[in-house]
């Protein structure tokens, strides 16, 4: 019952969000601001995590999976496939749900409890659209950039491991990451990430926008938004993988 109520409220909110901006110049300025806050400020965390994960996947495959039956280049190949198919889109977006989602929910939530959203409504602005649409627009438009950064950084992580340790040779790693390369996997990842970006921004905005009460409730909304967007990302991942790769 409760989840049905939330679903209904979420859909009603989205109906309010998707309306034509009052002033385009203000909207574009907001989008630029949000790109800065949500995308540019996330690059470092995406790059660092991806570098390490790329290195760790290569290491794990080298240590645990390589057997005389498998060719040496399987290390590079597995690293690439893991990054391209799942890590750089799904897992990266789970991490972003934590970083970006909690940020959005607490920002909008605190505006709600300090009556700033009421003030927007009284001024005559469509507060839902004014606050939420720029966030959705900027993350959905620019998530492919973050995904690309993650893919590249992950592959570099494996490369660094190959260069600076004697676990695997650089040339077999490089051969591995090129072996049987399918560009379609990149598009598949990018498309998935668009959906995930929409989930992160819209779900956390919903939790922030519907806060009732005080500072404590803003904290709760922020936690709930991370939990809910993570669950939805995983669900969407299962569904999209079925639809797109089957």
């Amino acid at each position: 019952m409760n989840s049905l109520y939330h679903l209904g409220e979420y859909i009603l909110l989205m109906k309010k969000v998707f309306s034509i901006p009052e002033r385009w110049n203000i909207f574009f300025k907001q989008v630029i601001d949000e790109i800065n806050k949500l995308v540019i400020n996330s690059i470092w965390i995406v790059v660092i995590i991806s570098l390490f994960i790329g290195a760790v996947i290569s290491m794990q495959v080298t240590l645990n999976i390589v057997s005389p039956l498998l060719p040496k280049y399987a290390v590079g190949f597995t690293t690439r496939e893991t990054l391209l198919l799942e890590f750089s889109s799904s897992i990266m977006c789970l991490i972003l749900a934590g970083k970006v989602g909690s940020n959005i929910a607490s920002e909008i939530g605190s505006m709600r409890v300090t009556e700033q959203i009421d003030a927007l409504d009284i001024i005559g602005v469509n507060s839902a659209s004014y606050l939420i649409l720029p966030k959705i627009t900027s993350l959905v438009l620019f998530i492919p950039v973050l995904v690309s950064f993650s893919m590249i950084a992950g592959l570099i992580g494996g490369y660094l491991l190959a260069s600076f340790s004697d676990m695997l040779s650089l040339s077999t790693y490089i051969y591995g990451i090129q072996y049987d390369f399918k560009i379609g996997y990149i598009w598949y990842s990018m498309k998935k990430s668009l959906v995930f970006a929409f989930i992160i921004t819209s779900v956390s905005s919903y939790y922030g926008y519907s806060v009732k009460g005080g500072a404590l409730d803003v904290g709760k909304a922020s936690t709930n938004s991370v939990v809910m967007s993570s669950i939805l990302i995983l669900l969407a991942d299962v569904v999209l993988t079925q639809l797109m790769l089957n």
Partner: protein
Amino acid sequence: MLDIKNLYKAFDGKEVLHDINAVFEPGKVNMIIGQSGSGKTVLLKCIVGLHFPDKGEVLYDNRNFMKMNKKEVKMLRREQGMLFQGSALFDSMTVLENVMFPLNMFSTDKPKKRMERAMFCLERVNLKGAEDKYPSEVSGGMQKRVAIARAIALNPKYLFCDEPNSGLDPKTSLVIDALVQDITREYNMTTVVNTHDMNSVMGIGDHIVFINQGIKEWEGSKEGIFTSVNKNLNDFVFASDLFKEVKNTHLNNLEG
């Protein structure tokens, strides 16, 4: 003129407003007074349309708010200005940007004209020089004044203030009161102020509506308060010894 008719509002089955009727005239400071929790904020929010009443009508110069479509509500918004209990300034914007915001959104004037208007409003509330500060960098009293400047930026016909004096010292309260009264007279606005500050009621109240537990128990002028026989009103207004004394002096003067 604002006309409120048979207004009811309940939250989760708990009635907060019961059959409220009131008329608020332009050029007057209309005050809604009552104890904390009596329903003042809920009433004000029903009037401005932030809450939807369960029953009843709110007429803005004979235009029924409850029957307005989206477009009409949007037009009405330009005529409303509101001062919130906690100021509700946009904390990501400077003082000037806060006042500019409604203008940038809705004014068709050129940017230079808009800037002039914003500066005029800031000057009107005596805040020249604070344009570039952020709300967190100015005092509570200044925040209230910025909020007033923002509320009057688009020249509203109706001004709503939810406890403009809460959290302010008596002297600053007088400044805010005087400001509310002045702009009400100057622009012939229909002003509705929520308060439990009896100093402001006695200072600037032209028409007073007393609410107790969601029911309108009394209305009249501030002089009328002294002679009212409503027990709840007397308990509320003359709770402090100071006001008891004021009342006795006032009644003695009337007799003498």
